[in-house]
């Protein structure tokens, strides 16, 4: 196990961690402005290591696709397992073993991991180099690089670990890094609030993820991905291990669906999908390199990675897959609509990220190898072009003195030529224009959804003709072990419903492609075209960025343009190096591999999506180039402005002054019918008002306004969730302050009150103290000595009798 590759598997995450720790400790004292060197070098070495790992994975034999390195045993609790893991039923090799609760810290390397590692470390390296220029002379320079190192460690570990619990640990670790980096400029209240929001929204998703992990433990009796051979030689089948996959021992039905949905909730939180997408746009408060690295290229793809990794679980539950696809397709459309009207350049890109992540979910949701590899491929290409776009936006922001509102600058094409050209490449790639990477990956997703619909319809027609219950995979089952455990049979109605759903998702994806091109080029045109306009904040700073910022832009632009061409030109000749490599991942072997051939290049689909993207670009250039036809016109129509003008009092008055109206009036006056005309006029006005009132109210929720206000998600969440929670918290704090603290304080105040009664005795007069002592002594004496007290009382009695006698005379 101590061979070179195993050490590399450990070193790839360990190097950035070591660099981060060193910079964190020595940064403020020793490194200062040189803090970046260590981190950049460590990430660079990690990247080289990842390349070696990738090479190793490519050359591994097909029967042993993954390599697992066990570092140490984290925890071991004997007999903590459920009596009999349901997943083991019918699995001779693992039946009857009571697996102890054992968590090994083990890292793995397989196709999926090494692809993610390469992508993460490469983008991180470029962004770190970019940050040298961007964060130059920031007060927290060393802190920034320390966080970046920590993030790279967490992310590389996240994709390397081979255990659900550790996956969760690093899932949280990247969340913490994200929180720290969003709130990097913590003096800004909005940045601190955004960090908090990201953390809290993610918490909802993490809760689901945690429940999902618990359910996996209960159902499968282990949390390991890989198979573990015990001391006794028995094999404990990992959840995603080869044994279980080849046996197809996965639980479907309600439990399987619950696992899928809970994991999906976790993925939705981290990857900013529909119900939990609200944190990502706010996360743009962080430094721009962070937005590029964490909130566009790497961390947000953790959800995609996790769902890809858990593919066998999703295979067992077609409804779960449909849910993934539906969430993805809906989010893609929603975010695309919102991105149309945002004026903050980074926010446009953030919504575009959400939208593209939705695409990836859609691809994964098809559940075919073509779809999953397309989703992963889109993740891969998206990382490059979205990082490129963000870094370009950061370059613009750097030059414009941190102004990011697109209405305040324009025509920067000539002033920042490098940024412009690289940004243009990114835009073309994002929009899916032909030879660039975005086209290939997005088209692959759309095509996979298309063929999924086709498959389902084919299955339906087979069912109709033969009544047989076998899914289409039976044909491929001869070679694949999937035949052992075919996908659960579904009723005809379910199939029809699924086919319909995927059909709609296909249309949504197509429409979103149009929106993508539209908003991307809107941003490009508003920023780089039109009359040159520079905000006052820029000062004399409005020039091209320094070399350390431009070089990563160029490198990323080359990747964004070339990755698709190099890797997926093969779509045309059907070799698919990326998909073939990805298919070596253990999770994607077996049932998945049997679902589908590696996908064919759908020329028709590609042509349609290309046409749609071009239409989007044209629409954007019509709206935002040249004459100001743009927002004002759009806003006018969307806000029902003409209607407002028609029902205006002035308009109606002017109408009365028209010649024809006056003519009618004069005629009526001559006939003594002036009152009738007045009445009719009044009635008309009332009718107009009544008819237009709902439309005027509708202005509040006109499409433009909905989009501009992000469909009021924040407001709705505030009202429905945050508000009641806050009210509850206030109530609790009031109860705590007044009731509970009140009782405690009361207990403290009672002795104080008694004390204050006695306090007046403290006169400070020595004689008084002496007297009190003497009197006290007498009282004590009397209390102790009954004889004496008897004597005294007798004496007092006599005294009393004597005095009464004297008084009475």
């Amino acid at each position, binding site marked *: 196990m101590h061979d070179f590759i195993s050490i590399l598997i450990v070193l790839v995450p360990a190097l950035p961690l070591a660099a981060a720790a060193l910079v964190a400790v020595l940064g403020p004292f020793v490194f200062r402005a040189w803090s970046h060197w260590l981190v950049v070098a460590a990430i660079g070495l990690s990247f080289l290591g990842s390349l070696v790992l990738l090479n190793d994975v490519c050359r591994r034999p097909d029967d042993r696709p993954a390599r697992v390195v066990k570092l140490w045993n984290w925890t071991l609790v004997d007999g903590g397992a459920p009596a009999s893991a349901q997943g083991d039923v019918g699995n001779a090799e693992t039946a009857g073993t009571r697996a102890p609760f054992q968590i090994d810290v083990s890292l793995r390397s397989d196709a999926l991991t090494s692809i993610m590692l390469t992508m993460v470390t490469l983008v991180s390296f470029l962004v770190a180099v970019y940050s040298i220029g961007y964060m130059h002379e920031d007060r927290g320079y060393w802190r920034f690089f320390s966080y970046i190192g920590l993030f790279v460690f967490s992310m590389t570990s996240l994709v390397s670990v081979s255990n659900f619990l550790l996956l969760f640990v690093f899932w949280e670790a990247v969340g913490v890094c994200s929180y720290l980096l969003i709130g990097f400029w913590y003096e800004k209240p909005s940045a601190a609030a955004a960090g908090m929001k990201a953390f809290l929204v993610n918490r909802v998703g993490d809760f689901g993820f945690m429940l999902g992990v618990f359910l996996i433990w209960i159902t499968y009796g282990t949390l390991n991905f890989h198979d573990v051979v015990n001391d006794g030689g028995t094999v404990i089948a990992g959840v995603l291990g080869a044994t279980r996959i080849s046996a197809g021992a996965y639980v479907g039905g309600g439990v399987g669906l619950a696992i899928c949905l809970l994991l999906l909730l976790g993925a939705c939180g981290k990857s900013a999908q529909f119900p939990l997408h609200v944190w990502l746009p706010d996360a743009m408060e962080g430094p721009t390199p962070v937005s590029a690295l964490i909130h566009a290229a790497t961390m947000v793809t953790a959800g995609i990675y996790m769902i890809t990794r858990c593919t066998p679980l999703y295979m067992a539950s077609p409804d779960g897959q449909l849910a993934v696809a539906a969430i993805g397709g809906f989010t893609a459309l929603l975010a695309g609509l919102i991105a149309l009207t945002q004026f903050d350049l980074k926010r446009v890109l953030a919504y575009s990220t959400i939208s593209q992540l939705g695409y990836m979910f859609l691809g994964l949701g098809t559940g075919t190898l073509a779809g999953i590899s397309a989703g992963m491929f889109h993740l891969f290409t998206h990382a490059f072009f979205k990082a490129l776009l963000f870094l370009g936006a950061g370059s613009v922001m750097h030059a414009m003195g941190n102004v990011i509102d697109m209405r305040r600058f324009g025509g920067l094409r000539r002033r920042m030529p490098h940024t412009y050209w690289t940004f243009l490449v990114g835009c073309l790639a994002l929009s899916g224009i032909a030879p660039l990477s975005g086209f290939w990956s997005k088209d692959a997703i759309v095509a996979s959804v298309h063929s999924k619909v086709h498959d389902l319809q084919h299955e339906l027609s087979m069912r109709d003709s033969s009544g047989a219950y076998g899914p289409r995979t039976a044909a491929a089952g001869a070679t694949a072990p999937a035949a052992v455990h075919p996908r659960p049979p579904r009723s005809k109605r379910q199939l029809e419903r699924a086919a319909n759903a995927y059909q709609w998702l296909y249309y949504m994806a197509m429409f979103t492609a149009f929106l993508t091109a539209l908003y991307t080029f809107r941003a490009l045109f508003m920023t780089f075209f039109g009359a040159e306009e520079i905000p006052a904040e820029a000062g004399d700073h409005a020039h091209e960025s320094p070399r350390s910022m431009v070089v990563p832009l160029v490198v990323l632009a080359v990747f964004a343009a070339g990755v698709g061409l190099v890797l997926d030109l093969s779509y045309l000749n059907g070799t698919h190096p990326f998909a073939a490599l990805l298919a070596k991942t253990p999770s994607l072997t077996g049932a998945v591999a049997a679902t589908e051939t590696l996908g064919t290049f759908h020329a028709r689909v590609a042509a349609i999506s290309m046409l749609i993207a071009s239409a989007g670009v044209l629409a954007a250039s019509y709206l935002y180039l040249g004459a100001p036809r743009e927002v004002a016109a759009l806003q006018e129509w969307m806000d029902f402005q003409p209607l407002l003008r028609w029902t205006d009092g002035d308009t109606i008055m002017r109408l009365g002054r028209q010649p024809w109206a006056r003519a009618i009036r004069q005629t009526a006056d001559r006939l003594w019918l002036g009152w009738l005309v007045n009445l009719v006029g009044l009635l008309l006005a009332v009718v107009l008002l009544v008819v237009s009132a709902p439309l005027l109210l509708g202005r509040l929720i006109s499409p433009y306004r909905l989009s501009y206000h992000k469909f009021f998600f924040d407001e709705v969440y505030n009202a429905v969730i945050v508000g009641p929670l806050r009210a509850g918290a206030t109530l609790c704090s009031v109860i705590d302050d007044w009731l509970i603290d009140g009782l405690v304080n009361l207990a403290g105040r009672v002795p104080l009150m008694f004390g204050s009664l006695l306090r007046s005795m*403290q*006169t400070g007069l020595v004689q008084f103290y002496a007297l009190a002592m*003497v009197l006290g002594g007498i009282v004590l004496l009397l209390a102790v000595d009954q004889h004496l007290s008897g004597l005294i009382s007798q004496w007092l009695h006599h005294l009393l009798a004597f005095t009464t006698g004297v008084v009475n005379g």
Partner: protein
Amino acid sequence: MNDVTELAMLQNYLLIGALLFAIGMLGFIVRRNMIVVFLCAEMMLQGVALSLVGWSRYFDDWGGQMLVLFIITVAACEAAIALALILMLARQTGNLDLADWQDLREEGSPPYVDHLIPEQREPPAVWPRLTPAGKVPEVDEEALLHRDRV
């Protein structure tokens, strides 16, 4: 016979001791002059010592008398300290009134002021101020003639 006289003698001792103690106690409570108060305390101590001697004699046990010797020794030390304290206190206020020292009273409560006895306080002593070394003192001839302390 012998026992009877012994008992009678013990009674005498105890009576005198009790009287000394009672007078001392009364004086301690009533008087305000610090020295007198201290003397009263000594008197109480001596009352106790006397009764100890009486009991010691009655039981023919020397332990009591030994104790008294210790008491006297301790009382002597105590007197030295007490007088020193009294001296310091008197220097600060210029008189021996115990009621001047009420600082241990509860914060915020008003001090006890004796309204029954009219104020007959001497003004605080004014000591001659020495001029700093190296300077010829300016001597006021009038003051030299009429100064009250030398």
